[in-house]
């Protein structure tokens, strides 16, 4: 019952209610964290057991919010499908929204398929306000909230979850989920399209958990949408500085933002720099170029000859080029190692400076090849076999 796919869940719902739920299940993205879409579980029926199926009309809706998942019960009546649903807000027994502020409830129209989704969004807004109200228990956290609210960058896209007081210590905890206003649009497409998942909107979310009302235990965490994470180099991209003791969000969040922006810049820059590098090599080595990565510009292979000795040079350009040095792999085309591979040698340290432009790098590389090749040749003859 719990791990039903959306389609399977829909098939069990009473036919009259199906359009409403379709919208929720298929297109339902509410809140900041749109990677987790709305899920339906625990389908039950309010009809007698004599009713032939499918006639489920009540279910649990899982809504991601501020790093938590809200589980709300939604109760319809299959025999009166035109009536609006009722809600049980799970653990939040105190949450009681004002019906007059839910326009889609007051003028519920079962004929409109998006009515339920809109109602859920309105309820979430009310829920957000309710949580912000709860922050008033702690003046410190309230200050954090207010200061963020004033900032136009963050104020509008914030989700607060003010948790329950810890019954042992009476401590109050809260979680802030903020959407970071970082521009990911210039990230090269090739980086983004590798992901197998439906990327959705590229978003970076910063979640800051306050385990106590005095903000002495603060745990920040960065969430990136999978494509961004991949584009920025995997989970290492998620390392952010610790929350400074005594600091406040209004200082910390821009800091993280900047860090992320810088990373993105690096990545963008790196792309361009790599392009430049490859272009320069192409022009310098001309016919010597065997192949190169024309999309990401991460690899280049050259076939060169020195004194009748032909060899291959593979150049691997790292993500954070030019900060990180490219790796050169020399490969002999004649000799094999005992494992049947072509004999090769990797060179990671050679004269290099990130400040050189593409041309300069190509020239220096050429010079380096000349100096290194005799060494390589000897090695190849000595260790490899024809």
């Amino acid at each position, binding site marked *: 019952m719990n791990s039903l796919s959306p389609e399977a869940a829909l098939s069990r719902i009473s036919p009259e209610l199906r359009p409403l739920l379709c919208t929720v299940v298929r297109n339902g993205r509410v809140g900041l964290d749109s990677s987790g879409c709305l899920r339906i579980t625990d389908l039950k029926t309010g009809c007698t057991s004599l009713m032939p199926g499918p006639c489920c009309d*009540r279910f649990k809706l899982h809504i991601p919010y501020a790093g938590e998942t809200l589980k709300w019960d939604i109760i319809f009546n299959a025999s009166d499908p035109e009536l609006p649903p009722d809600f049980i807000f799970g653990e939040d027994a105190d949450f009681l929204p004002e019906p007059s502020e839910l326009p889609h409830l007051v003028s519920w129209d079962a004929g409109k398929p998006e009515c339920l989704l809109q109602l859920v969004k309105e309820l979430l807004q009310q829920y957000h306000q309710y949580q912000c109200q709860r922050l008033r228990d702690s003046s410190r956290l309230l200050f954090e909230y207010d200061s963020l609210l004033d900032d136009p960058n963050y104020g509008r896209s914030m989700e607060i979850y003010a948790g329950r007081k810890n019954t042992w210590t009476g401590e109050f905890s809260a979680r802030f989920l903020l959407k970071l206003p970082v521009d990911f649009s210039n990230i090269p497409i090739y980086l983004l399209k590798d992901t197998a998942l439906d990327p959705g909107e590229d978003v970076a979310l910063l979640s800051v958990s306050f385990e106590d009302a005095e903000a002495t235990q603060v745990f920040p965490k960065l969430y990136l949408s999978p494509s961004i994470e991949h584009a920025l180099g995997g989970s290492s991209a998620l390392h952010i500085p610790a929350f400074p003791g005594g600091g406040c969000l209004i200082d910390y969040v821009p800091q993280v933002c900047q860090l992320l922006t810088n990373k993105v810049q690096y990545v963008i820059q790196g792309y361009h720099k790599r392009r430049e590098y490859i272009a320069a090599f192409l022009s310098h080595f001309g016919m010597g170029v065997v192949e190169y990565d024309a999309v990401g510009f991460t690899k280049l292979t050259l076939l060169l000859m020195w004194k009748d000795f032909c060899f291959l040079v593979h150049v691997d350009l790292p993500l954070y080029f030019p900060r990180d040095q490219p790796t050169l792999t020399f490969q002999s085309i004649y000799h094999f190692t005992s494992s049947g591979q072509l004999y090769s040698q990797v060179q990671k340290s050679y004269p290099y400076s990130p400040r050189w432009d593409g041309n300069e790098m190509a020239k220096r590389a050429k010079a380096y090849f000349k100096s290194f090749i005799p060494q390589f040749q000897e090695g190849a003859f000595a260790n490899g076999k024809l």
Partner: protein
Amino acid sequence: MYSACAKDCGLGAYVSIMAASISGYTFSSVCYHSANSNSDHEGFLLGEVRQEETLSISDSHIGSSEFLSVIEVHNHEPCAQLFSFYDYAGNVNEENLNRILKDRRKNVIGWYRFRRNTQQQMSFREQVIHKQLTNILGIPDLVFLLFSFISTANSSTHALEYVLFRPNRNRYNQKISLSIPNLGNTSQQEYKVSSVPNTSKNYASVIKEHGTDFFDKDGVMKDIRAIFQVYSALQERVQAVCGEVDQSERVREKIQEEVNKLKEEIALRKRNSAEEERRLQEATAVTLPDNSALPDNSALPDSSHSSLTRVVLSGPSVEPSLERAVNSSSPPIYSTTLPPDSPSAILLPRPQAVGSPGHPSPSVGLGNGDGSSSDSLNRQATGQEDEDNSDEDSSEYENLVSEQLQPPSLSEAVTLGRPATVWPDGDAHSPPGS
């Protein structure tokens, strides 16, 4: 309707607790309506709220009074469809409400909802409606009964769960236990009669028609009056008997006093007669030094003194009295004369002196208080010298004949005794009767 607020003001805490009960037939009726509906179902609960106050005093705190509000659900009013008295936003329409409740509005104590396969928690709309109903109906402690019907996946087991809420309280005190009287093991508990008033018109008319057979004009059962009369009569009799007992006790007291007095007299006379005997003995000892013959010593010579012989012969009759006088071991009662005018004394049992030698069984009182009947017995025993008696003796002998008839029948009544006062024949003592 009723105030049931909880205040904690330190000393003399004022606690309010609620208990609720629903009659079995109302409960089953609600379940029936609910289970037969193909959707959620709702309605109103009618009944009454009673307040009981318990004042408890203990050492730990100055009297605390406990208010127990008892809710009794007598009836219910189901709603035909959902949203019949409220709109989509949960606003309650008072007109529709009145149309559903009609004149039973004042009996409303709560409302109920039935929904299948949901949690036992008040939902959003239910809370909104509840607040409004509280205001509109003016019931501060309106209750909400939630039925939830849980079925297993293969419909093999269905559970009907019900929880009674009072949402107008703080959130930690919201659920009340609902009891259904007589739903349980009635072999162990008594079958409880509920105080639900019967509102059936048919019942009322039948009772009115036949009630006069059982009830009198005041509405009290006739049997009760009859029993009460019996009780009063018994009480009167008891009081009367008490009086009689009181009287007889007083009489008894008086008699007891007299008895004590007489005992003292007996003792006194005994002492006096003992004195006399002693003197007599001393006198005879001086004159007849060896006349210390015991009465049953037949070795005494016959011819020594005629008076003595006579004395000896009549020894058995004389000496018993002498002996009795000397031998103070015999009960002194026998040597005293009874006052002739106490007939009840005759009825008093007298202990028999078992083992006093030669003592004839005393005869029962024959009207002479002086023991003359025993005299007649004795005379018969020693009949021979009766012929030598004087006339007075023969007259007594005649008496003896007449009295002879009586002793045998009375001889077995030994316990009722007359003193066996035997006066020796021809003795200086003349029988008082003559």
